[in-house]
């Protein structure tokens, strides 16, 4: 059978796919994407076209309620021992709609600052510092919701607390919008995919950026000056999940795949490829020492405590954010 997998770059490295195919006789078709596109695609197909998808845990509940694009996960078909229990529990709780569970965790990580410490370390300590004239033309970030959230925190707000209060949230977003528009001149370009950012930083075209932790750690291998830094206002913590699209046609293979990649050895391979840790219990043992070291360097204990984990996004917020993002992009 064929498993059509809709996932992030790095989450299904070729060697893992090959291993899986050899062991099971199935074939895997990988489509790389991001949260918004995953949801848009599933919405257009009303949950068809793919057998397994990996949106972040905060993006499961809302779209499910709006479009009904996922189907419930039969957790009993999973080898639950492979998951870190606390993470499994938290994710299931965040992705439950009408009593059905729609997501289980896979990869987790944070967003923060990736920078060349030699060139920008002095100046950039928090998201808002990306707007400092000292790094003009040398910074980048995504024009997506994490940036809005990150800037909100660094401007001293707590957007997550305002999730329930649309008016308040709007007010926060207006502040962020003003900041981002003001900051626009500083930005070289808004990056789109992880590798794109890595190219920008590696080539020196960008010295500081809001980005996923893993990017910084990967670049660290080539250039010791470059690394991931948890921002003063706290890194943003995310968990990417497994969900079953409503009209997937290979659920069994999907469960097989989940059970396969959650095995500690395999999970470690994914960590090596994606740069992020997984929800696989015991994969730590197999993980590369270097990565662990980098993780520890980026995250002293107080930084770990300061991680802001995304709660599920209530419906309605996205349209507020969307307009803000459009306005920022169009501003001149």
């Amino acid at each position: 059978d064929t498993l059509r997998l809709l996932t992030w770059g790095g989450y299904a490295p070729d060697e893992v796919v090959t291993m899986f195919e050899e062991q099971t006789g199935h074939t895997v078709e990988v489509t790389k994407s991001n949260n918004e596109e995953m949801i848009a695609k599933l919405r257009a197909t009303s949950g068809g076209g793919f057998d397994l998808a990996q949106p972040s845990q905060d993006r499961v509940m809302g779209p499910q309620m709006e479009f009904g694009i996922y189907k419930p996960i039969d957790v009993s078909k999973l080898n639950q021992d492979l998951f870190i229990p606390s993470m499994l529990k938290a994710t299931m709780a965040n992705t439950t709609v009408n009593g059905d569970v729609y997501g289980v965790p896979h990869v987790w990580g944070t967003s923060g600052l990736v920078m060349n410490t030699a060139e920008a370390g002095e100046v950039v300590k928090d998201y808002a510092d990306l707007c400092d004239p000292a790094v003009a033309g040398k910074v980048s970030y995504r024009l997506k919701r994490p940036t809005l959230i990150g800037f909100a925190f660094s401007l001293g707000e707590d957007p997550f607390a305002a999730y329930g209060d649309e008016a308040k949230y709007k007010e926060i977003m207006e502040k962020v919008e003003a900041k981002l528009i003001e900051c626009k001149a500083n930005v070289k370009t808004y990056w789109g995919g992880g590798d794109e950012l890595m190219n920008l930083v590696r080539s020196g075209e960008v010295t500081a950026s809001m980005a996923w932790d893993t990017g910084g750690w990967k670049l660290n291998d080539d250039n010791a000056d470059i690394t991931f830094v948890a921002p003063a206002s706290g890194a943003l913590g995310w968990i990417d999940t497994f969900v079953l699209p409503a009209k997937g046609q290979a659920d069994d293979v999907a469960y097989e795949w989940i059970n396969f990649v959650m095995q500690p050895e395999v999970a470690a391979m994914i960590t090596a490829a994606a740069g992020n840790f997984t929800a696989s219990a015991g994969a730590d043992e197999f993980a590369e020492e270097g990565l662990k070291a980098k993780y520890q360097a980026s995250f002293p204990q107080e930084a770990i405590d300061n991680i802001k984990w995304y709660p599920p996004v209530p419906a309605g917020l996205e349209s507020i954010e969307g307009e803000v993002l459009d306005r920022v992009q169009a501003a001149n």
Partner: protein
Amino acid sequence: MIPTIPQSRTVRIVYGGYVALFFLYLALPLTVVAVFAFNDSQFPSLPWEGFTWNWFFGDTRPQIGVFHERGILGAVGTSAFVAACVAVLSVAVGTTNAFLFNRYDFRGKGLLYVLMLLPLVIPGIVLGISILVFSSTLANGIWDLAQMDIQALRPGLLLVILGQFSFITTIATLVISARLQKFDRTLEEAALNLGADRLTAVRTITLPFLAPAMIGAVVVAFLMSFENFNTTLMLVGSDAPLTIAMFDRLKEGSTPLLNAVSLLLMLGSSLLALMMILFQRRS
């Protein structure tokens, strides 16, 4: 100003220089793409790290070449499949359209002709979304009515093919019509006069006459389908054709692998175009 009108040397040199500059402008991006397919580096940019074939034939990370890159090869296959379907379909419909407009007079012909031209002035992305929207409406309607899920009506290859077909057919129609217009209908009458019935006359005289245009249209349709982006972007499902696959990768950042693919694309399509030109010159 034509060669037979005497012109001062300076004017001629300046003009010639401008034209040369123009062709430089045309050639530059493509040349650069081609050259950096051989850069022994992770990046398609300076500095030049030395020459390598790895981006074509390499089979070890990080320099996996085109011919060992499953995703790209698969996408090429998908593109070729889509393009072949689009070419065959659009040329078939283009031919019937050409005959219809050339051979019959009927009420509303002018209107239909303008409608036929319309896809040329509809932005590709709008074509894409309109078909996306309509096919979803249709699929949802069928679901509501019969609880039947027609996956073919969801984004995927069929929609991609139909989406491209919807405007490439106009081009095929124009190409074939142009040739049919040049067809001297007395040739068909001559065939009738020599004992052929209508269908035989069309088969033995008209279609052979149209063949160069039809082959030309097949090639043009194939190439247009192969490189189509805007319409496809809105209709693509899980198997992405090459342009979409390359775009996804480009968004992630480029490696010389993309240059290698591009170079092969350039060679392939130039070859195809050249073959077509040679064929058409021959007949």
